[in-house]
């Protein structure tokens, strides 16, 4: 179980991004950003009282761009959270970073503060593709960042890569995969570009200004990622995630196992005590709300047993190892087949899922059509 901290600040918004973040400049430090960091502490103390789900073993900073916060301030925040919340003695502490924002000194400070895993938003190794999606870094920044992190002693390094980008072809993608492998990361995430309504890229696409690889080409890219990365000894363990054996991301696993976590920050989601909440994506509102000691919920829902089962299957089937039938029975005191007999039968028949070693999991076909598998468990 773990803690997610959302840092909703960016130096610039990428063209495809619909995650909650606001663009901040020098002028916003210390004012807005410092107040935000104070609010995060208040929120952490609020949930410390409510948390009753056992020890925490992961802490994840996502964004936005967490590394936009000066490293010494981040270090203070991490130290505070590790001290005040019931963490185990060796938690996984991950921070998302953009390649241009990682400096050798910054890396040292982060490592000193307890960060042991960094997820770099590399996305692609072709500058024209990076420009097309509005990234600020250059391809050469990626290697430099990885080296800085390594020399600071950070061993767990993930590279985020994207496929289906405007102007990207299979050759670009192969080159990206190979360049990434050359940096020997312990973990790789391969995400498909999804056009989200309201983003610049979506509106350009609608106006016919950008062309994107077609559905078949995207499938080919996904297939290629599997071949290249598995060939290099990486395990494909979740739809979008690959790692060297023994280097799975502890934090993301807790999502896929549908376990409780505390979410801190503007726009963050959390799941504890049988309830899911989402904070309003509004930085100033968030600060005001915690100044009064109130959680700034946008939504709050109790998750009933049926919904918990559905969601456990929905996210669990994203893992290639699937869902353990014994684990399901232990958690819900009922067999998976009893609840989802018909859906499972259909998935088996359609060749989208298979049963092996007491686990229900996707087949190769089901992997490519995973929405159908997950949707089958929604009642």
């Amino acid at each position, binding site marked *: 179980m773990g803690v997610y901290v959302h840092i909703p600040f960016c130096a610039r918004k990428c063209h495809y991004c619909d995650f909650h973040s606001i663009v901040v400049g020098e002028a916003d430090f210390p004012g807005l950003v410092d107040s935000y960091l104070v609010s995060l502490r208040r929120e952490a103390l609020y949930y410390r009282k409510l948390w009753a789900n056992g020890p925490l073993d992961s802490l994840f900073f996502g964004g936005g761009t967490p590394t936009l916060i000066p490293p010494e301030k981040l270090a203070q925040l991490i130290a505070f959270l590790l001290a005040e919340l019931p963490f185990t003695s060796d938690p996984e502490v991950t921070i998302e970073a953009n390649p241009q924002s990682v400096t050798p000194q910054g890396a040292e400070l982060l490592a000193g503060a307890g960060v042991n895993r960094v997820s770099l938003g590399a996305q692609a190794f072709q500058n024209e593709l990076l420009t097309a999606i509005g990234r600020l870094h250059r391809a050469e920044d990626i290697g430099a960042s990885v080296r800085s992190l390594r020399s600071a002693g950070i061993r767990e390094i993930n590279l985020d890569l994207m496929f289906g980008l405007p102007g990207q072809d299979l050759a670009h993608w192969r080159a990206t995969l190979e360049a990434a492998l050359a940096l020997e990361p312990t973990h790789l995430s391969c995400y498909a570009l999804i056009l989200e309504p309201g983003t610049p890229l979506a509106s350009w696409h609608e106006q016919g200004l950008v062309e994107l690889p077609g559905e078949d080409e995207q499938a080919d890219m996904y297939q290629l990622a599997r071949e290249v990365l598995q060939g290099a000894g990486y395990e494909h363990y979740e739809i979008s995630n690959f790692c060297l054996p023994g280097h799975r991301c502890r934090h993301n696993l807790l999502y896929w196992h549908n376990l409780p976590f505390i979410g801190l920050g503007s726009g963050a989601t959390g799941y504890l005590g049988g309830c*899911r909440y989402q904070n309003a994506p509004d930085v100033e509102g968030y600060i005001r709300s915690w100044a009064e000691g109130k959680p700034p919920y946008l939504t709050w829902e109790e998750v009933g047993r049926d919904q918990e089962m559905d969601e456990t299957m*929905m996210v669990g089937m994203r893992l290639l190892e699937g869902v353990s039938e014994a684990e399901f029975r232990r958690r819900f005191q009922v067999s998976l087949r009893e609840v989802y007999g018909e859906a499972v039968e259909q998935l088996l028949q359609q060749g989208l899922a298979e049963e092996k070693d007491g686990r229900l999991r996707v087949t190769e076909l089901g992997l490519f059509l*995973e929405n159908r598998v997950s949707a089958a468990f929604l009642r």
Partner: protein
Amino acid sequence: MVQKNIRNFCIIAHIDHGKSTLADRILEATEAVSKREMTEQVLDSMELERERGITIKLKAVRLIYRAQDGEEYILNLIDTPGHVDFSYEVSRSLAACEGALLVVDASQGVEAQTLANLYLALEHDLEIIPVINKIDLPNADPERVKRELEDVGLSAEEAVLVSARTGQGIDQVLQAIVERIPPPRGDAAAPTRAMIFDSHYDQYRGAVAYARVVDGTIKLGDTIQMMSTGRQFEVTELGVLQPGFRPVQALGPGEVGCIMASMKDVRDTRVGDTITTAHNPAAEPLPGYRPAKPMVYCGLYPVVNEEYTLLRDALDKLQLNDAALTYEAESSAALGFGYRCGFLGLLHMEIVQERLEREFDLNLITTAPSVVYRVVLKDGTVKEIDNPTALPPMTHVEHIEEPFVRATVLVPDEFIGAVMEVCQERRGTFITMEYITPERARLEYDLPLAEILMDFFDRLKSRTKGYASLDYEFIGYRQSDVVKLDILLNGNPVDALSIIVHRDKAMARGRALAEKLKEVIPRQQFEVPIQAAIGSKIIARETVRALRKDVLAKCYGGDVSRKRKLLEKQKEGKKRMKSLGNVEVPQEAFMAILKVD
């Protein structure tokens, strides 16, 4: 009121030439008198309104008008439907009148429906008062319109120039109605005969008949008899619309009103039928009645089989108010249980479909509309086929006949070529062409009704920059070389996608239909071949390639709710599709044939 002071009239016009605005102005101009009349009646009618809430539609409005001669006249304005699907209903409304206002737009001039309505009115010996409307518009050209009226045999001198928008000329129109339209001639002493020209269903009173009394009198409490069926009912309420409902004791010759007699649905009050009295029945009905005969059929199926009984209940309810709607249960191998429904035309079909979906919240699949084919078998028997799947094996068939219509198209002369092309593409036979003015031509073509159903009017409009106007009437059956075109999905024939087409068109339609289906059928988990076939011969083939990727490979992290919503939305979309075997087919696929050419 004495018969000589009654005038029964209607307003006829091409669409958008200002018929309803003119009607509104006429109502307003006569309102003062009507209002005084109404207040006298308020006490009588209030109780009725309080009790049940009146839902009477203004099918016929009684107006009181004090003419220049100082006398009061009753002007009955009878409404006419405005679409070619309902031409029979129009003819019955005209038959209830002695005169008609023919409204022509001062800038558009005479159009196809102007003419069609004019000829229909002349057939009923109506006095025609030409009304040139919208004379206040800058592009009005009343002189040109007058010439066009002369060209079609009307007296331009008698035309009244009005602007229904500003009210200019309305008094002259009312005066012309009184002076030029003859009073009704009917025999008060003869056995009662009244013609039903409209009806509707009221949930408290049952069917309400709108009728014009020709001879004799209908009184409250009378036992009336419908001459087409012999069914008898006791008159419980009689009234006129002024425009509020005003009860009356009796309706005499020449009068127009509504009759309620505990009739359970509108099939008891068929448009065109003659009402007589049981105690002194008329020997002969009034001429011109024919039962409503559907011209177009389609299958209606619930997307979810469980909604079948809901669909049946909804059709039962709609039929109470729509005598022209017919339906009978049928089943399709592909779609399960549904109903074969008959309609007067495409518009009627769309109205019914929309009401079923909107008012009854049903999710329906509509199969492609079909006309009724007459199949003459080798043994000499004749079968009427309204569903392509019912076509007997061709080895048993001597020949097939299909319904034809005579279409009249009015168009500026620069588009004559385009109209001819469209009609010829649609298997039309040229009948005649004449210039009604130096710039405007009138073309007549005989066309198979089936071709009119296929988006004909839209096509005609688009090829003539919107200038062509169309009217048509059924003229009978003609022998035709038609064949059944089948569609196979994944190798299995889908009966609901079969159509009957002319042999010369089969190849092209089959290819176009297969292409269209490829567009509308989403990619599935496996490849889906689409084939078009005539008998065992495949004439076209397309393939919907297998879906290769359907996965949220994006980092939504712990946002489980968002993931869930995305998947639920996707699932919802799938529910609106019909699963045929293992192929998911969206509703629009069954209407795809209407979108090809």
